[in-house]
C-alpha cells in the first residue's frame, strides 16, 4: 500500500497571492485573515467507529460515507466491491480503515480532501511500463462539472482496456500510450458516464453532467438535506442553468416554466413593477396564494435576488412542505445560493445586452374605421347619419376643421381627419443590460464567493424616462473550526433596486388611461407643435413629460449565519440566525402644467397645486432557529435520522409618508421649499405594525437499506395574529413514504427500469399569509379621514371601530400525494408523475352577511376547498458522437372546487370568486341564443318578460333557461324556478406546460424553452370589451366589420350601440355576461431561445482563460394564442378590464460569459 496524500491548502494559496497583488481588494484581505485558520486536515482529524459483519465492500463504503463526509470513487469493474468482509474499527483514521479493507488486494488509494479514490496497482504499473505499443500518444485534459468546477477523482479509462487513470485535485489528467482509434471513458459517481473518441486529439477536456436519476444528488429539504434517492415527497429541483445565459432581469421571470407544478405569471411589463405572482399546484385558498420563499433558509424576496447567484431551487409541493407548518400551505421554494468550491480561485464575468420590443399594443380603430363604426351606431340609434364629406375628408387626410368636429359631443371642437397610432407613438424599443462578476474559491476548511451584479431594464416609453436598475452584492463565506467540528456558513447580501419613472405611469394622471381614451384622429401636436389637450382627452405625452417624476428605491440587506456543531459523531446541533433589513424610499412629485388647446391658447392647468410626496418604510425581520439532528445506523440496514428544534421569528414594520404642497419652483421639490403657510398644505401620515411566530418542529426519518423510506414530521406554530385562545390551535403533521422498487429482485429481473420508485404522502400545513391584518382579533379604532369642520375649516379625522372576530385561526390545508419516478433505457429516459389532492377544510371566507351588519364582516373559517391535480415531467437525453441532445417536458393541471361555504352561497352575473360546488373564479351568466335577425324574431322574443322594451334587431337573445317566461337572473324559491344564469366556466389556467430542448454539437449549443397554458377562458370587461362603450371611447380595430348589420347577418358581435346616446340599457343587455363573451387566452410561447458558441479551449488557453462563451438569445419571441383580439392584448395579461396594462415586451439579446 502506498500513501499518496495531496494537500490542497498550499496549492490554492499561490494563485490567491497573485490575484491579491493585482486586485488589492480589501475583502480578500479579510478573507486571507480568516483563511489562516486552516491547520489540521480532515483525514487526520476525523476518526471513525463502526462495526460490519459479513457485508460487501460497497456497503462498508456507504457506511463510511454516511458517517463522515468522505465520498468514494472507484471503478467497480476493477475493484470487487461485492466481496464480503467483516470489520471492526474503533476511533481510527481513514488511512487505517482503508488499509484494513484493501490490505489484501492490490489496490492503492488516494485521498483528495474528502474524496477517496481507489485504483488498482496493476493499472498504474502497466501504464508505466507499456512502452512496446506502437503509434501511441499521450492525451491530457481537464474534467469539470456543469458549474465549471474541477472534478477530482474522475476515472478515465481507455474503453475496453485496463489502461486508465484518475483526475487530480484540479480535475486534470494525463493518460499515455493511447491508440488512435481509442475511446476514452470518463466516469464518476453521480455523474453520467461519457465516452469520447480520441481521434487525433491530444487534449480532451470535458464537462460531466449530473446523472439524470441523480440518486446521489443532494436536495435541500426543510431543516436539512437529503439524497435525491431517499426523498419521499413531491420535490422538484432546478439548477443554475435555468438562470444563466438568459437575458432575464428577474429571478421570477426565469422560474417561469422551470419547475413542474409551479406557475409564474406576470401582471405588467412596467420595469420594476412587473407584479409577478407564483402559484404552486394551483389554489389552496381564496386568500392569496404565495409560496413560502426561503433563500438559504431565511424568507426572502425573489424580485431582488440576483438570478446569477442561485445554485439551485427546490420546490416542496406536498407533505414535504409541512415541516414549515403555518406558512407552507402554498408550498415552499428553497433557494440555495452558490458558494465557493475548494480549488483555485475562479473569476467569472458575464455580460448581456438586450433590446426589448413591445409585443402587444392595443390597436384602436383607424380614423376611417372609427367613423364608419360611429356612423353604423348612429344608424342603429335612428339618429341622423354622418355627413358623407367626413369620410371623404378622412380618406383625403384633410386638414382639420377649426371648430367643427364630427364626433358626438365634440361638434364644437376642432374636427380631425388624420390618423395617428398613439400606441406606436408612445411605445418604442427599450434597452436592457446585465453584468455579473463573481470571484470564488476555497481551501480545505473555508470557501468564499463574492459576486456583484448590475441589471438595468429600460422601459419602452418614447417620452419620459422609465427604468429599473438592480444592484446586487453578495458575499458567501464558509469556514470550519475545531477540527472541523464546527462548520459555519455565512451569507450576506445587499440588494438595491432603483426605479425611475414619470409620476403619470399610474395614479390620477395615468397616461395609460389617457392613452386608452385617445382616438386615432387626434393629432399628437397642435398647430404650434405643442402637446395639447383635445377637449377633455388628457394628452398622455404631456402627462409623461410634464406630470412629474418618481424615484423609488428598495434596499435590502440580508445576513444569515448558520453553524453546524458536531456534538457527538451522531449528533449535530444546527443554529441559524437570519436578519433581513428592508428599506424602501420613494419620492414623487406632481408638477403644474398648462393645458393648451389646438390653437395654442392656455385654457387651464393641471396639478394647480404642485406637490411632492416622500415615503419611507423600514422592515426588520429576524429569524432564530436551532435544531438537533441525530443520525444512527442500526443493524447495518436501518438508518434513522431524528431532528427536532424550535424557531422564533419577528417582524417589525413602520413607514412615514410626508406630502408638501405648493412648491415655489416646479423643478425643485425638497420639502423645505414647500408652502408652509396653510395647514392644508402639509400632510403626513405613518403606520407601524409587527408580528411574531414561534414554532417547534421535528422529523423522524427511517430508511431500510435505501429501499424503503419513511418520513414523519410535525410542527406547531404560535402566531401573534390570532386571539390567545386560538394562537396555538394547530399542529401540522405529515407522513410520507417511498419504496425504491428498482432495488427489488422482481423489478431488476425485468431488466427494464434503471430506477423505479413509488412515493406517497399525507400532510397538513397552514396558511398564515392571509390577506388580513396583524391584529384582526382586536377590535380597533381606526383614526383617519379629513372632514372639514370649524371656521376656518380644518380637516378633522374621525374614528371608526372595526368589526373583529376572536374565533379565526389558520386555514389548514391537507395535501395527499402519490407519485412515481422512473428511469429506463439506460437512464436516458426519465420521468416522474404525481397526483395530488389538496383540501382546505377551514378556509377563511368573507362571509356575506346582511348589510344590516353595517360593515365588512371579518372572514371566517367557513369554507371548504378542494383542489385536485397532477404534475408530470419527462426527459430524454442522449448523445451521438459530438451531438448531444436533451429534451424535457413538464405539464401540470389542477382543478379547484369549493365544497362548502356554510350557507353563504351567493353568486351574481360575472366573476364569482366563491360559489359552492364550483371552481374558484367562476363566471356565471346567460346562455345566448344568437342575435335577433328580423322583426318577427324581435316580436317573438319580446314576448318574454324582463326584456328591455327598446330592444331591437341586431341585439342579443338570451335563453329563458328555467322556462318561467321571463329573463331572470335568479330563481324564485316560492315558484321553484332556478333563474336563467348558468355556469360559464372558470378563469383558472389549466394544463400549464413547458418544454426544454437542448442541442449541443461540438462547440455550439441551442436551447429552447417553450412555455404555455393549455386552456384558459376569460372575459374582457370595461370599455375595451365592446365597440363605442361610451360614444367617445375609441373602439378597438378588432370589432371593425364584426358587428351585426343587415349586411352582416352572421356577425360575431351584436349591433353597435354607442354609449351615452340614450340606449345604454340595450348596450348593457347585449353585453351581459354570457357564453358569447368567453374568450380563450390559452397560449404557447417560445419563452427563451439561446444559441451559444463555446470558444475553443485552445484559444481560451492562449488568452489564459478557462472558458469563453458567446450567445444570442431571445425571450418571449413568439406566441400563439387565440384571444389576443388582433394582438391587442397579451394572453398572460392578468388585468383584463381595460387597456391600462403597461405592455409586455419581447427581448433580443447578446451576451458573453468568460471565466478566468
Amino acid at each position, binding site marked *: 500500500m502506498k500513501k499518496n496524500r495531496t494537500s490542497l491548502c498550499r496549492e490554492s494559496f499561490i494563485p490567491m497571492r497573485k490575484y491579491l497583488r493585482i486586485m488589492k481588494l480589501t475583502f480578500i484581505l479579510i478573507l486571507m485573515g480568516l483563511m489562516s485558520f486552516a491547520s489540521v486536515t480532515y483525514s487526520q482529524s476525523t476518526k471513525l467507529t463502526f462495526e460490519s459483519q459479513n457485508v460487501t465492500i460497497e456497503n462498508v463504503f456507504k457506511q463510511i460515507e454516511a458517517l463522515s463526509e468522505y465520498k468514494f470513487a472507484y471503478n467497480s469493474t476493477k475493484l470487487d466491491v461485492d466481496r464480503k468482509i467483516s470489520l471492526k474499527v474503533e476511533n481510527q483514521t481513514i488511512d487505517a480503515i482503508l488499509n484494513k479493507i484493501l490490505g489484501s488486494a492490490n489496490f492503492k488509494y488516494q485521498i483528495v480532501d474528502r474524496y477517496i479514490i481507489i485504483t488498482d496497482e496493476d493499472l498504474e504499473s502497466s501504464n508505466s511500463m507499456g512502452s512496446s505499443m506502437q503509434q501511441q500518444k499521450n492525451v491530457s485534459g481537464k474534467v469539470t462539472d456543469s458549474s465549471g468546477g474541477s472534478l477530482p477523482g474522475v476515472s478515465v479509462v481507455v474503453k475496453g482496456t485496463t489502461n486508465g487513470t484518475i483526475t487530480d485535485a484540479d480535475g486534470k489528467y494525463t493518460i499515455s500510450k493511447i491508440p488512435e482509434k481509442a475511446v476514452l471513458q470518463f466516469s464518476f459517481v453521480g455523474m453520467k458516464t461519457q465516452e469520447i473518441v480520441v481521434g487525433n486529439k491530444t487534449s480532451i477536456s470535458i464537462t460531466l453532467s449530473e446523472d439524470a436519476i441523480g440518486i446521489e444528488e443532494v436536495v435541500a429539504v426543510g431543516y436539512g438535506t437529503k439524497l435525491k434517492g431517499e426523498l419521499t415527497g413531491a420535490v422538484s429541483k432546478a439548477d443554475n442553468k435555468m438562470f444563466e445565459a438568459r437575458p432575464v432581469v428577474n429571478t421570477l421571470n426565469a422560474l417561469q416554466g422551470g419547475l413542474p407544478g409551479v406557475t409564474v405569471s406576470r401582471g405588467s411589463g412596467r420595469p420594476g413593477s412587473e407584479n409577478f405572482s407564483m402559484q404552486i399546484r394551483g389554489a389552496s385558498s381564496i386568500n392569496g396564494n404565495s409560496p413560502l420563499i426561503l433563500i438559504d433558509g431565511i424568507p426572502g424576496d425573489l424580485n431582488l435576488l440576483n438570478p446569477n447567484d442561485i445554485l439551485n431551487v427546490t420546490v416542496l409541493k406536498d407533505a414535504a412542505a409541512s415541516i414549515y407548518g403555518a406558512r407552507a400551505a402554498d408550498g415552499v421554494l428553497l433557494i440555495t445560493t452558490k458558494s465557493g468550491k475548494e480549488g483555485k480561485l475562479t473569476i467569472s464575468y458575464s455580460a448581456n445586452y438586450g433590446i426589448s420590443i413591445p409585443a402587444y399594443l392595443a390597436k384602436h380603430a383607424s380614423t376611417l374605421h372609427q367613423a364608419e363604426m360611429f356612423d353604423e351606431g348612429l344608424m342603429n340609434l335612428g339618429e*341622423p347619419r354622418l355627413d358623407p364629406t367626413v369620410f371623404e375628408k378622412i380618406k383625403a387626410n384633410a386638414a382639420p376643421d*377649426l*371648430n*367643427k368636429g364630427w364626433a358626438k*359631443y365634440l361638434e*364644437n371642437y376642432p374636427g380631425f381627419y388624420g390618423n395617428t397610432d398613439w400606441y406606436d407613438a408612445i411605445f418604442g424599443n427599450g434597452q436592457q443590460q446585465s453584468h455579473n462578476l463573481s470571484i470564488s474559491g476555497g481551501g480545505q476548511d473555508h470557501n468564499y464567493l463574492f459576486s456583484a451584479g448590475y441589471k438595468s431594464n429600460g422601459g419602452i416609453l418614447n417620452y419620459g424616462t422609465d427604468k429599473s436598475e438592480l444592484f446586487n452584492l453578495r458575499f458567501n463565506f464558509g469556514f470550519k473550526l*475545531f477540527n472541523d467540528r*464546527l462548520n459555519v456558513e455565512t451569507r450576506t447580501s445587499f440588494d438595491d433596486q432603483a426605479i425611475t419613472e414619470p409620476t403619470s405611469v399610474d395614479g*390620477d394622471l395615468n397616461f395609460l388611461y389617457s392613452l386608452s381614451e385617445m382616438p386615432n384622429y387626434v393629432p399628437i401636436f397642435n398647430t404650434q407643435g405643442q402637446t395639447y389637450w383635445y*377637449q377633455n382627452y388628457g394628452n398622455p405625452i404631456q402627462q409623461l413629460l410634464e406630470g412629474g417624476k418618481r424615484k423609488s428605491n428598495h434596499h435590502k440587506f440580508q445576513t444569515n449565519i448558520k*453553524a453546524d*456543531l458536531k456534538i457527538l459523531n451522531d449528533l449535530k*446541533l444546527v*443554529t441559524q440566525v437570519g436578519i433581513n433589513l428592508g428599506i424602501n424610499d420613494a419620492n414623487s412629485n406632481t408638477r403644474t402644467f398648462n393645458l393648451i388647446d389646438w390653437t395654442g391658447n392656455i385654457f*387651464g*392647468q393641471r396639478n*394647480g397645486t404642485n406637490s411632492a410626496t416622500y415615503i419611507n418604510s423600514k422592515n426588520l425581520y429576524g429569524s*432564530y432557529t*436551532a435544531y438537533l439532528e441525530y443520525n444512527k445506523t442500526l443493524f447495518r440496514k436501518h438508518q434513522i435520522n431524528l431532528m427536532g428544534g*424550535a424557531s*422564533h421569528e419577528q417582524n417589525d414594520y413602520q413607514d412615514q409618508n410626508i406630502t408638501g*404642497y405648493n412648491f415655489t419652483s416646479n423643478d425643485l421639490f425638497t420639502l423645505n421649499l414647500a408652502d408652509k403657510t396653510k395647514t392644508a*398644505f402639509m400632510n403626513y401620515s*405613518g403606520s407601524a*405594525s*409587527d408580528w*411574531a411566530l*414561534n414554532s417547534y418542529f421535528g422529523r423522524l426519518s427511517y430508511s431500510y437499506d435505501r429501499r424503503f423510506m419513511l418520513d414523519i414530521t410535525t410542527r406547531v406554530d*404560535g402566531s*401573534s395574529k390570532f386571539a390567545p385562545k386560538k394562537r396555538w390551535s394547530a399542529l401540522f403533521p405529515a407522513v410520507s413514504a417511498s419504496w425504491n422498487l428498482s432495488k427489488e429482485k422482481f423489478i431488476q429481473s425485468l431488466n427494464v427500469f434503471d430506477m423505479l420508485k413509488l412515493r406517497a404522502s399525507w400532510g397538513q400545513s397552514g396558511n398564515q399569509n392571509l390577506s388580513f391584518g*396583524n391584529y384582526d382579533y*382586536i*377590535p*380597533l*379604532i381606526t383614526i383617519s*379621514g379629513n372632514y*372639514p*369642520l370649524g*371656521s376656518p*375649516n380644518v380637516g378633522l379625522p*374621525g*374614528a*371608526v*371601530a372595526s368589526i373583529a*372576530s376572536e374565533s379565526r385561526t389558520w386555514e389548514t390545508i391537507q395535501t395527499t400525494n402519490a407519485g412515481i419516478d422512473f428511469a429506463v433505457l439506460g437512464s436516458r429516459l426519465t420521468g416522474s408523475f404525481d397526483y395530488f389532492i389538496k383540501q382546505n377544510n377551514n378556509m377563511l371566507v368573507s362571509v*356575506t*352577511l*346582511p348589510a*344590516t*351588519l*353595517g*360593515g365588512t364582516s371579518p372572514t371566517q373559517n367557513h369554507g371548504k376547498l378542494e383542489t385536485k391535480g397532477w404534475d408530470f415531467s419527462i426527459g430524454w437525453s442522449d448523445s451521438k458522437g459530438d451531438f448531444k441532445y436533451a429534451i424535457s417536458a413538464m405539464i401540470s393541471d389542477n382543478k379547484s372546487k369549493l365544497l362548502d361555504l356554510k350557507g353563504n352561497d351567493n353568486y*351574481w352575473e360575472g366573476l364569482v370568486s366563491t360559489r359552492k360546488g364550483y371552481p374558484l373564479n367562476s363566471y356565471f351568466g346567460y346562455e345566448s341564443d344568437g342575435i335577433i335577425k328580423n322583426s318577427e324574431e324581435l316580436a317573438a322574443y319580446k314576448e318574454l318578460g324582463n326584456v*328591455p*322594451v*327598446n330592444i331591437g334587431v341586431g341585439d342579443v337573445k338570451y335563453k329563458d333557461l328555467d322556462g318561467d317566461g321571463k329573463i331572470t*337572473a335568479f330563481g324564485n324559491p316560492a315558484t321553484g324556478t332556478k333563474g336563467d344564469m348558468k355556469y360559464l366556466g372558470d378563469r383558472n389556467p389549466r394544463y400549464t406546460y413547458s418544454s426544454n430542448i437542448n442541442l449541443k454539437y461540438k462547440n455550439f449549443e441551442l436551447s429552447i424553452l417553450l412555455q404555455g397554458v393549455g386552456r384558459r377562458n376569460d372575459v374582457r370587461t370595461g370599455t375595451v370589451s365592446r365597440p363605442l362603450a361610451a360614444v367617445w371611447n375609441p373602439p378597438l380595430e378588432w370589432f371593425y366589420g364584426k358587428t351585426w348589420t343587415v349586411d352582416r347577418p352572421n356577425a360575431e358581435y351584436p349591433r353597435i350601440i354607442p354609449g*351615452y346616446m*340614450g340606449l*345604454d340599457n340595450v348596450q348593457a343587455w347585449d353585453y351581459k355576461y354570457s357564453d358569447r363573451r368567453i374568450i380563450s387566452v390559452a397560449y404557447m410561447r417560445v419563452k427563451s431561445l439561446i444559441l451559444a458558441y463555446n470558444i475553443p479551449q485552445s484559444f481560451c488557453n492562449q488568452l489564459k482563460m478557462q472558458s469563453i462563451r458567446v450567445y444570442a438569445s431571445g425571450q418571449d419571441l413568439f406566441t400563439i394564442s387565440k384571444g389576443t383580439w388582433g394582438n391587442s392584448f397579451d394572453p398572460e395579461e392578468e388585468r383584463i378590464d381595460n387597456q391600462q396594462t403597461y405592455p409586455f415586451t419581447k427581448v433580443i439579446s447578446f451576451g458573453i460569459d468568460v471565466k478566468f
Partner: protein
Amino acid sequence: MKHIFTLFTIVLLLAGCTKKLDLYPLDSISQATFWKSASEFKLAANNLYNSLSQYQLTGDLESDIAYDVDNAISSGTYVVNETDDHWNTPYYYIRRCNTIITAAENSTVTKDADVIRFAAEAKFFRAWNYWMLFRLYGGVPIIKEALDINSEVLYSVRATRKETVDFILQDLTAAAENLPLKSTLSTADVGRITKGTAFALKSRIALFEGTWNKYRGSASVNEYLDMAIESANNVINSSQYSLYSGSGADSYRYLFIEKGDDSPESILDDRYEVNVRGQGMAWTVLQGYLATKKLTDMYLCNDGLPITKSPLFKGYNTRTSEFQNRDTRMTMTLLTPGSLAEWKLFPDKIESWPFFPQRNSNTGYITNKYRSEDRYGNTTQQQEHGFDTHIIRYAEVLLSFAEATFEKNGSISDADLNKSINVIRNRVGMIPLSNAFVASNGLDMKQEIRRERTIELALEGYRYDDLRRWKTAEIEMPQAIRGIKIVGSQWGTDQIVVSGIDKNPYSKATYQNSADANGFLIVEPTQGRNFDPAKHYLRPIPTKEILINSKLEQNPGW
C-alpha cells in the same frame, strides 16, 4: 469553547421562544381603551359627517326638472340591483352611530355634557341614515346596536313604514334635546350638528310622511303634518337662522358658492375646503347638469303671474326672450345665453352658450347655480372647489312650514305666508304671495306653494322625493323631456359666431329634426320615459340582501 457555544445557542433559543406573542397594534387604538373621554366621542362623531355626502345635489337628474344623459331612474328603466350602495352605505353609518350611542350609555363619563352631546350627534346621524333608507325603500329593518357577526338580529324582518319613520323622528327628538344652539357653537365647531338641524330634518321627514300618507289615503296624516309644523316653528322661533343676504340682490346666486359658506341660512352642510376635501359641482355644471323646459317654465314673471297668464312674458322667439321679466332666481339658476361668465377651466369671463364652455347642449339651458367664480378652483384640478353643499337651509324650513300648514288645513293664512314664503320671495324681490292674489288671478294656492318650493330648491335634489310624496310622479315623470325652442326661433336660424365660426348646433339638421310640434327641442321622448305607479314609488331591495335574508320582503311590483 464548545460548551459556551452550545449554551449560547440554547439561551438564544429560549429567549426566542419565551418571547411573548402578545403584540398590540402600534398605529391604532383598541376599542377597549377608547371611549374614555369626551374628546374620543367627538373623534368618533367626526366620522359620521362623511355620511352626508350620500346626499346628491344632482338628485334632480332622477326627476323631470333636470337632465344630463339618459338616467335610468328618471326614465324608469332601472332594474333590480344585486347590491346597492343606497342600501349598504346607510347601514355602515348606522353601525357607527350605534357604537357611539352604546358606548355613551355604558361610559363611566356618561354625565359629561359633551359625551351626551356627541351621543346626540350620533342619534341625529342614525336618523339621517335611516332617512336615506326610508325615503327610497319605505320600512326597513331597524338595527339599534352594533351587532355581532353571529347575531340573529342581522336577519330581521323589515319594520313597517310607520315603525321606521317613528323611530327616525324619535331619534331626532331625542337628539334635539341634547344638541346646542347654532349660536353657541365655538368657532372650531362651526358646521357641527345643532338643535336646529335636528328640528329641521324632523320637519322635512314629517312633511314627507304626512303628505305621503295623505295622497295615498293612509292614516296618520295630521299627526305628521302637525309635527312638521311644530318642528319648523321650533327652527323659526329659535332666532338662530335667517336667509343669506350678504350679496344683496344676488344673494340667492352666491349662496351656493364660496360666499354663501357658513351663512345664517346654513342648517346642515356637507362641508368642503380646498386641499382638504375639494368638491366637484363646478365641474359637474360645466359638464352639464341642465334644467329642463318644465323647470324654466315654472319661473313666474316678475308680476307674480305664471308665464301662461302674465302679459310680461316675452315668449321664446329670441335666445334671451324667455329670460325677460322673470323671477330673478331664473337667471341666478340659469345663465342667459351669450352672457359673460367665468367657468371651471376658464378663469376669465367668456361668452357662455349651451354648448360652450358648458359641454352639454342637450336642453339648451346653461346652468348658473354652483358655477364658481373662484379663480383658484377654476384653474386647478377637477375636484378643487371649497364651497359647501347645503343639505338643509333655512328656506326649506320655511317652505315646509307653509306646505305642511296648507296640507293640514287646506288653506294658509296670509300671516303664515308672510312668515314663510314671502320671506323667501322678499330676498329675490318678488312680489309677495297672498290669498287675495291667488284668488284674483285664478291661481291655485297648493300649486303656488309647490311651485315656490320647486323654484327655490331647483337643482338641489328635492324634486324626486316631492313628486313621489305628492303622488304626482306617475303624471309628471312619463312626460317627454324638453328644452329650448329651436324651430321657429332665433336658435333655429341665427348663427352664433365664436372666433369667426358659426357654432350654433340647433340650426343644424340633427337638432332641427328632433323638435316637437311647437318647435321645442325633445331631449327624451315620451317613449323613453316610464313610471309605473305600481312599483316605481319605491326602489327594489337589492337581490343579494333577500337571498341572504329570506325574511326580507321585496317592495311591491319588483
